[in-house]
């Protein structure tokens, strides 16, 4: 049994097809952010209903999710435009991912409250992960 478990652990990354092209990595990263926002909204609603979040905390989280969603839609459109223009290299997509990070940073509320910050962490990590995914993708430099 242990041998099969080890074999599985070795095989999964290959089956997942880790190396992606930068365009796919960017779009997949964007989809991951959308999913993280969806989860964050559900957690926020749950916390508010349970009394863990007050009105201010709920509003801060909602504002953050709104900003991220708008920036993410802009990001995905820019990525698609670059792809349709025939660009394939990682260097074409990295500045767009950087703009996404800056878009959120410049417009989203600062979550100084640790309880709110905890809920936003997964989404923040997904946003920062896009640059890493693009940089790790196989593509013409």
């Amino acid at each position, binding site marked *: *049994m242990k041998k*099969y*478990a080890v074999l*599985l652990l070795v095989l*999964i990354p290959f*089956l*997942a*097809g880790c190396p992606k092209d930068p*365009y*796919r990595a960017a*779009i*997949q990263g*964007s*989809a991951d952010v*959308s*999913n993280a*926002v*969806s989860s964050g*909204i*559900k957690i*926020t*609603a749950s916390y*508010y*209903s349970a009394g863990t979040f007050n009105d201010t905390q*709920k*509003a801060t989280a*909602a504002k953050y*999710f*709104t900003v991220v*969603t708008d920036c*993410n*839609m802009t990001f*995905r459109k820019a990525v*698609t435009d670059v792809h349709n223009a025939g660009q394939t290299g990682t260097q074409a997509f990295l500045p767009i991912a950087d703009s996404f990070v800056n878009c959120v940073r410049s417009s989203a509320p600062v979550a100084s409250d640790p309880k709110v910050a905890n809920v936003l962490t997964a989404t923040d990590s997904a946003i920062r992960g896009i640059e890493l995914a693009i940089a790790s993708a196989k593509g013409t430099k």
Partner: protein
Amino acid sequence: MDPNLVVNLALTALNEVLSIIAHIRAQGGMTTEQIAALADQQDLANKDAIKALLAL
């Protein structure tokens, strides 16, 4: 150990592996455009969910 138990454990583990592989293949089988279209739908759903959240 009971041989039947060993077989059952092995079958359960195999089913888990097949389930994981099917999931990974399903994701890998989507085109980038399909992933983008799903993300578009998810973002629109998120916007509605945020409105509902603010109305709570």
